[in-house]
C-alpha cells in the first residue's frame, strides 16, 4: 500500500464517521425540536361546527376555532355589491370577492378574524373601508376582509370550511 492510498482510506473513514455522527446527533435533536409542534390533542380540536340559523343579514358572529376567532358575516346585498365594485388595482393583495366566498352562498363571509400583520383581532364596522379595523397597528380591511391600508401584508385568511346543510357550517 502506498501512502496516498492510506490517506484516502483514512479520509474516507473520517468523513464516514463525521457523517454518521452528524446524522445521529440530528436524529437525537429532532424529537426535542418537534415536541414543541402542536400535539395530538391540539390537532384533534381542528374542526368546529357552527349553527347559523339565527344570524340576520348584516349581522355577524364570532366563533373560536383552533384558539383563533372566526368571523361569520351574513352580508347584505349592498355590502356584497360594494365588495364587488372595487377594482383589483386598488388592492394591496388583489383577490376577487367572488373567490373569498362559496359560490351560491355569496352572502356568507367566513374568515379568520386575525389581522395578518401581528395577529390581533380586528374590530367590526370600523375603519375607512366599511369593514374591519385592527386597533393594534392600524390596518384597515374592507367589507370582504381584504387589506386596504396599513401594515398588514395580505387579506384576512379564509379557512377551509363547508356547508354541512343550510343551517350549519363546518370549519376546518
Amino acid at each position, binding site marked *: 500500500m502506498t501512502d496516498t492510498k492510506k490517506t484516502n482510506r483514512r479520509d474516507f473513514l473520517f468523513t464516514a464517521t463525521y457523517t454518521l455522527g452528524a446524522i445521529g446527533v440530528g436524529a437525537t435533536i429532532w424529537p426535542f425540536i418537534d415536541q*414543541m409542534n402542536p400535539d395530538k390533542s391540539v390537532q384533534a380540536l381542528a374542526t368546529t361546527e357552527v349553527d347559523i340559523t339565527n344570524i340576520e343579514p348584516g349581522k355577524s358572529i364570532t366563533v373560536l376555532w383552533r384558539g383563533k376567532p372566526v368571523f361569520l358575516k351574513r352580508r347584505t346585498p349592498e355590502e356584497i355589491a360594494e365588495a364587488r365594485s372595487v377594482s383589483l388595482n386598488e388592492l394591496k393583495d388583489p383577490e376577487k370577492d367572488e373567490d373569498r366566498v362559496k359560490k351560491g352562498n355569496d352572502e356568507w363571509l367566513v374568515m379568520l378574524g386575525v389581522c395578518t400583520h401581528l395577529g390581533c383581532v380586528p374590530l367590526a364596522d370600523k375603519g375607512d373601508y366599511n369593514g374591519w379595523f385592527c386597533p*393594534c397597528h392600524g390596518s384597515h380591511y374592507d367589507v370582504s376582509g381584504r387589506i386596504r391600508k396599513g401594515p398588514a401584508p395580505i387579506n384576512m385568511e379564509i379557512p377551509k370550511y363547508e356547508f354541512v346543510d343550510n343551517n350549519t357550517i363546518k370549519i376546518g
Partner: protein
Amino acid sequence: MSENYTPDSKVGKWFNDRLPLLSLASHLKDYPTPKNLNYWWTFGGILTFCLITQIVTGIVLAMHYVAHADLAFGSVEHIMRDVNYGWLIRYIHSNGASMFFLAVYIHIFRSLFYGSYKSPREVIWIIGILIYLLMMAAAFMGYVLPWGQMSFWGATVITNLFSAIPLVGESITTWLWGAYSVDNPTLNRFFSLHYLIPFLILGLVVLHIWALHVPGNNNPVGIDIKKPSKDTVPFHPYITIKDIFALLMFTILFAGFVFFAPNVLGHSDNYIPANPMVTPAHIVPEWYLLPFYAILRSVPDKLGGVILMFSAIFILFILPWLDTSKVRSAVYRPIYKQFFWILVIDIFLLGYVGAMPAEGLYLVLARVGTIYYFLHFLVVLPLVGYFEKTDPIPISISEPVMTGSANLGLAKKTDEKI
C-alpha cells in the same frame, strides 16, 4: 496581587492548592480599579443586585404559581391575596424587572458616553448586549405568565413577528406556540424558559466580569492606566463601599415603586383575564421596549418593520467597529458629545411615540426618530470619528488635577461630569 496570593491558614492553603477559590476572592478584593470612577460606574453592582433579586423572588413565586391557561390568572391573584407576603414578593418581581431595565439602560448609556465598548473591551460589550437580549426575552415571557389581556395579546403580537419570515414564518410561529394560536402549550413553555433564562444571564454575567477583569475598567478620562499604580485603588473597600451607597439610593427608588406605586409601570388591562376573542383597544409593551416598538410600527410593511426592529438591537453588536474614533471618553470629544445627547433625546422620543397610537403626527415622529437612530450608528459615528478634532487627552488620571493652567480647564470639564 492575587497571582502571588497564599492563604494564611494551613487548611486554606490545602484547599486553595486544589481549588483556587481563595485566590479568586483575593483577586476580586485587590482588583485595581481606576480611582476616578464616578457614580455612573456603580450600575454594574446594582445590576447584579437586580438579577439576584429577580432570581430569588422568581423562585418563590414559582412555588405558588400555576402555569396553566385556565389557572394562571387565578394563581397570580391567589399570590396577591392569599399567600403570606405574596403581594410584596410579586410586586418586587414585577417592579424589579423595570428597575433592572432602568439600571441596564443607564449602564449602556454610560458605556456609550465614555466609550467603554472600544478596544480592548469589545468582547465585554458584546456579552453585555447578549445579556440585554436575554433580559428582553425573559421580561417578555415573564409578562405573559399572569395570562391577562396584555399578556395574551403581547405574546400574540411578538410571536407573530416571526410569521414575517418568508416561506417558513407560519411554521415557525406554530412551532413557537405549540398550537394554532397562543394557548396553553405556549404558556407552559414560556414558564419553562422564563425560569431558565435568568441562569443563562447569570452565566453571561460571570463571563462579562471575567472579560472586564482582563483589561480592567474603563474610566471617565477614558485613557489606559497602569495597574496597579497611583491611578488605581483596590476594589475593596474603596469601590465596594461606593457601590453599596449607590445601591442603597437605588433601592429607595425601587421601594418607592413597590410600596407606593406598584402598578404605575404596568397596564391595567392585564388585570383582565386573557380573552382570545377580544383584542384590547390599545396594545402597548412595557416601557422598556417602547423605542423598539415605535421602530416596528414606523414601517408600513410587515417584514420591513420586523427587520428594522431587530436591526436596531443587532446594530449594537458592531458598535465597536462603527465608532472610528480612538478617543474613548466623550469628555474629550466635543462633537460626539453633542450627538450622544441627541441620540438620548431620540430614544426618549421613540419611547414616547411607541406609547402613543401609530397615526398622524406620532407616526411622522416615529419615522424621523427611526431614521435618526440608524443614521447615528451608521453615518454619524464613522464620520465624526474621522473629522472630529478631539480635545487633548491627559497622560494620567492624576494629570488634570495635579498640573497647571493648560489642563485646568480639562480638569474642570471632567469634574462637571463626575
